[in-house]
């Protein structure tokens, strides 16, 4: 039974991958590129040590983002606001870390806490709007994303929080080396794997434990499956919304940190601002399961990184974005088809069993 469940949950992503590869091939043929050369180039470069290191680093970021989204998903809360939560979290982290002169462990711990608190507070606004005022979190978090970007550009451009970090680019003061978490280079000597890679594994295990082995996790999943049933059995749904959104926001606050503490050391106006949407897509691919999310994050990062040298073949690297979009849409559709098939086969097997029983009576 369990094997069968794993089998059916793998069918959908496999179909998605296959169809998206097929459509990509068609597009490549249409623009006059050689399909085999392109795929071979992606594979060769993508599996080189340097690319693998970059891939794991990027996957770390995506993993955290998708985890944040999926905490909400588990309770049918759409936290579209991971973008806003993580940029504010990363900005706060950049400000805090650059003003600390403590030993590495203390400095990084405080930085992490600052990012989590800011992310949680920003998500908390959406939670309050939902609980107290009945505003859908889908729309409030979208608005909060725009507001967060505005706040950041104000703080960096017009206040002393921002300084000129490199030519014509303003950002937070550089973080001292004692506050950075650069990581260890164990695959490619020139490219360290972010320290956050390991932290995010711990967070992933914590996520699994919280959801599957605690009372809170049970309440959360129960509320997601049927809010009314959960309420009847004594779950306080308003409290659940607060806790879930705050947790989701706290994890979201971490999304920018692998890059901030492992690479740039400053939150500048060039810091990426759309990892939250990537997280939504990967949470969908991974079906809110930490291992699934990890695999999804690695696949996503592989496509991002391995397409980096396609321009040598005369193909825009954006082909990987098309593949990602196709994978998501085909996978969600095939999950639905597989689910319908399962429901149907269950119904027929139950009907058969009942018919047998009746016949024997």
């Amino acid at each position, binding site marked *: 039974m369990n094997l069968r469940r794993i089998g059916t949950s793998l069918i959908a992503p496999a179909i998605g991958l296959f169809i998206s590869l097929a459509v990509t091939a068609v*597009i490549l043929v249409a*623009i006059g590129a050689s399909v085999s050369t392109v795929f071979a180039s992606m594979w060769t470069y993508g599996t080189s040590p340097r690319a693998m290191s970059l891939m794991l680093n990027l996957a770390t970021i995506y993993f955290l983002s998708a985890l944040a989204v999926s905490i909400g998903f588990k309770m049918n809360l*759409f936290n*579209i606001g991971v973008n806003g939560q993580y940029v504010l979290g990363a900005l706060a982290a950049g400000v805090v870390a650059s003003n600390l002169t403590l030993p590495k462990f203390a400095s990084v711990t405080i930085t992490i806490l600052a990012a989590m608190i800011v992310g949680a507070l920003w998500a908390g606004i959406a939670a309050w*709007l939902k609980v107290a*005022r*009945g*505003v*859908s979190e*889908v*729309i*409030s978090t*979208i*608005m*909060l994303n*725009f*507001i967060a970007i*505005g*706040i950041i*550009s*104000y703080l960096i*451009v*017009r206040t002393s929080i921002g300084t000129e970090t490199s030519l014509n680019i303003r950002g937070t003061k550089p973080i001292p080396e004692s506050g950075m978490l650069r990581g260890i280079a164990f695959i490619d000597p020139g490219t360290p794997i972010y320290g956050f890679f390991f932290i995010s594994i711990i967070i992933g295990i914590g996520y699994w434990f919280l959801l599957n082995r605690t009372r809170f996790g049970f309440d959360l999943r129960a509320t997601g499956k049927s809010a009314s049933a959960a309420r009847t059995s004594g779950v306080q749904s308003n409290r659940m919304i607060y806790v879930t959104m705050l947790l989701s926001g706290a994890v979201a606050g971490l999304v920018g940190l692998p890059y901030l503490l492992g690479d740039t050391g400053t939150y500048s106006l060039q810091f990426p601002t759309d990892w939250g*949407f990537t997280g*939504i*897509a990967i949470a*969908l691919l991974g079906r809110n399961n930490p291992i699934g999310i990890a695999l999804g994050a690695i696949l996503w990062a592989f496509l991002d990184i391995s397409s980096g040298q396609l321009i040598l073949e005369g193909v*825009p690297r*954006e*082909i*990987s*974005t*098309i*593949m*990602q*979009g*196709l994978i*998501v*849409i085909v996978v*969600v*559709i095939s*999950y*639905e*088809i597989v689910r319908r098939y399962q429901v149907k086969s269950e119904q027929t097997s139950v009907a058969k069993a009942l018919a047998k029983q009746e016949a024997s009576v």
Partner: protein
Amino acid sequence: MTYLKSRRFIGAAFTAITMLSITRTITGNGDLTSTVTIAQALVFASPIALAGLAGIWAERAGVINIGLEGMMILGTFGAGWAGWQWGVWAGVLAGVIFGAIGGLLLAVAAVTFGVDQIIAGTAINLLALGLTKFLAIVLFTNAPGGGQAQSPPIKGEIPTFTIESIVEPLTSLHEKGIFFISDLAGIFAGLFYHLSLLTIITFLLFVMTSYLLWKTAFGLRLRSAGENPWAADSLGVKVVQFKYAAVVFSGMLAGLGGAYLSIASTIYRNGNTAGRGFIGLATMIFGDWRPGGTAAGALMFGYIDTLRLIDTGNQNVKGLILLGAIILFAIGGIMLRRARRNSAIGFLLLGSVMIGAYFSASSFPPEVAQVAPYITTLLVLATASQNLRPPAADGVPYRKGDHH
């Protein structure tokens, strides 16, 4: 009924102009109600309004359309690609068709396969973004005047109309600075100054939507698919067909909005939508899933955007702050009269904070205006969400005979 409605509309317009006029008189900033400001606000508002209208069509049929942004992106691309080669009207057509393809994709995923609608929409946004960036590089890099991230200039122009005999006298009346009269003149003149045919089409689409969706049997059936599709089905409404039609038309409208953007900036450019699809969604909710309110929301966004971008002396944003304070005080007053004490205190407090800000700072950074529309939307949602009424089965996947 229509008499009541038009009375309400005139009342609302009267109140809005009065508040603008008070602000303009106190600040002495003629830009706030000038002909040029209003004309430009219409240009900024129209694409957002079209996105909002697109949202109305999809959601009235029960399909949440988070993919509006992606469909708009497809529209901007279609307009740039066809407009550069075959002229501006071909661009409009291609924008609409590209948007429709996005809509069709959403319909297939959400209606036929019953995939969660927010998920399907998110996937479409991703796909549209990747596809257009990719195609831009393939198709525009070597085109004359194009680049990796932008198309060559779109050929030709959409006709615009200026009625000099209205604009000129009213503009000079506006410059006299008479309370209310001058502001009314400036705003009215703005409606006839460089008015794009596409803006007129946008307006007509709003009128058509209010009529079709609320005054015809077709509209009743379409809305019933968004309120209670199972009941509608039992009465013989072909729910799936209506949902398909609504979502594809939604894509067409979003695509038209995208085309409008590209045509207004004469080229397709990566990222030209800048989240306007999401903003359109916000205006739709702001407007309670109805055309009138949605248009008002879009005008607010367009107006604030305009003032921010033409802010030469850094005074427009300051004017907006005062305007915001006056509006908050007015709403606070209404709340007091309706004996909603807590809300009233909230509004009056916020209004006082803004008045304080107005008098304590000599100018405000443009970022304030940048976030103002979003904060306003949140405020509206926070105070009015109990009165807003989305379609009852909005976002609920429908399968014939599958009602639980």
